[in-house]
């Protein structure tokens, strides 16, 4: 038997919400990066779900692209976090308010 599409989508939405909450609430920059990964993966899940249910492989190919981009993004993000840590000796986002007026 097949699992209905709603299950996948609800899971994806839940993962996305967790990611958003993580980005908005957590103070640690590394955890924020992880939350972003979570959001991207939820999007991947949705893509693959639709792809599989519609019998169309384009969504799956898209998921690969997203993964590649996510890897690159994670690499750069971590590099920035390390650079900031060297300067400020902290990765607490509250204390890194360089944009402030």
């Amino acid at each position, binding site marked *: 038997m097949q699992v209905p599409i709603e299950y996948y989508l609800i899971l994806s939405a839940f993962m996305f919400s967790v990611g*958003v909450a993580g*980005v*908005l*609430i957590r103070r640690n920059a590394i955890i*924020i990066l992880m939350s972003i990964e979570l959001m991207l993966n939820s999007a991947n899940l949705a893509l693959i779900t639709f792809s599989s249910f519609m019998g169309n492989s384009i969504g799956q190919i898209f998921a690969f692209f997203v993964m590649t981009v996510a890897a690159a993004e994670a690499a750069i993000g971590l590099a920035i976090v390390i650079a900031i840590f060297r300067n400020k000796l902290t990765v607490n*986002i*509250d204390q*890194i*308010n*360089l*944009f*402030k*007026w």
Partner: protein
Amino acid sequence: MIDYIYLTILFPLAGFLINGLFGSKIKNEKIIGIIGSSAVGLSFLFTILSFIQLLNLPIDERTRVVELFTWLNVAGLNIKFAYLVDQLSIVMSLIVTGVGFLIHVYSIGYMHGDKGFWRFFAYLNLFIFAMMNLILGDNFLVLFLGWEGVGLCSYLLIGFYYDRKFEKGTVPEAAKKAFIVNRIGDFGFLLGMFLIYQTFDSLNFLEVFSKAEYFPISETTFSFIALFLFIGATGKSAQIPLYVWLPDAMAGPTPVSALIHAATMVTAGVYMVARASIIFASAPAIMTLVAVIGLLTAFFAATIGLVQTDIKKVLAYSTVSQLGYMFLAAGVGAFGAAIFHVMTHAFFKALLFLGAGSVIHAMHEQQDIRNYGNLKKYMPVTYLTFIIAAFAIAGVPGLSGFFSKDEILWYSYSKGNLTFWIIGALTAVITAFYMFRLVSLTFFGKERFGKDVHPHESPKVMTIPLIVLAFLSIVGGYVGIPEIFSGEGGNALKNWFKPIFAPAEAKLRTFGSHSHFEELLLMGISVAAALSAIYFAYVVYTRKKEIADKTASSVKGLYNTLLNKYYVDEIYESSVIKPILIISEKVLWKVTDNKLIDGIVNGSAKLIYYISIIIRKMQTGVAQFYALIMMIGISVALFWLILTL
């Protein structure tokens, strides 16, 4: 040749470009002078050829339009860059290029050794270029282009000696005065052009004039157009109330005074009035105004000329006065006579100025006639030619000035009234008097200059143009012999201009006929008066100088008024210039600019600053706050999208 008429305009332009761009590199005065003179000489040659061709055409084909290109084509306004060759423009072209060529040649000698030699010739060529555009343009816009161009050249050449002092001020001040006073006139001219376009829906001469002739257009409209055009003419041709710049224009080199401020540019206003004769003829009130202004200018300028002591100043006021004569002629409807006087005046006034230049040259820049005397001994050629010109301007029978001036005086009586004639004739007498005061003080009497001054005759390159102009001053009048001497239809110039001025003359009121006896009587009176004035001036200023001094001291008030030019400059200074300066400083600068405009600019900056103080609080610097705002935005957008689906 007529089809190549644009060459007469391109040669001076080429001369200007060559001398203007490379003049400082060429350094050799001879080459620069030859380039400058031959540019105008070639132009003169082509004008003569065109003139001959025009002469051989039947009368009704003597109006030719030479189109070059479409200049403007915007929203129904289509202006072609085209030249109009007809009886009027070809005569003016002959005067400008012919006299211009002689003055160019003369300048080679006069400007010898000047550090701005190449600049001088470049400007002169540019002037001829602009003037030819003014004369030959076939619509008001091309005329206006030339009109502004000659104004610019006049400014550049008046200010030629930009590092020198002039009277109470400096040379650049005199140049600026000329430029600004001309602007006032040009503004009037522009308004006239706008009104012409609004009324006739065209700026093309032939179109406008044929519409003006046949279309039912109210006299009020004509009056306004003519008034505005005439305001333009008063500026350019130095008439009351805008004549004040011309005496100051004498700050320029003397050949410039001869070319621009005597022979050609200042007659542009007369040319324009003659060109638009049909418009003026349709506005009788303005015609009377033109005649009265011309008459007043002629008379008052002549009286000022009586007491001036600077040789160029006397000639300058004489020019203003003679220009007044031309407007008097135009104002009574004798447009042909006006152009005739433009021509003869160009000959003898250019000669007078060049002669004055020769004297100034010999006397080492001394311009005060009280320091001259007995120069005929040292400068025979200058003396002879100068006195011919003086006889011509005084109206001695047989010379050119006699024919044109007499024609104007006759028309001012036969088409105007007796008052016009009396004041006109009186002006002629005063003219004869001040000219021979000038001649006597300069060439006769005792030597009043120091022992260290050694006057000498000018070089050939200067005296030959003088001789040619003297010849023209003698014979120039024989193209317009009055009909009482030459019989009905014997006035060659009048017949030549007939097709141009016939529509205007047909529109003007017709007058009762006058007998030949009247004409001869009036002519006799004015000639006799002028001759006695010449003799009187000669006696007083060569032998009995004390009469002049005594007269001057007995009417001291009048004398000083004349010496100070009726205080017109002072009146303008206190009534126009001072108020403008005060208003500019106290109101326009201190209030309008400092408070209002700066206030608006600084105020808007301040407003943004205060708003920023409030809204910059949103920039917390916490990245998560930004992310939150973004999320809210996306959610709202999504909801809106879903709800509208």
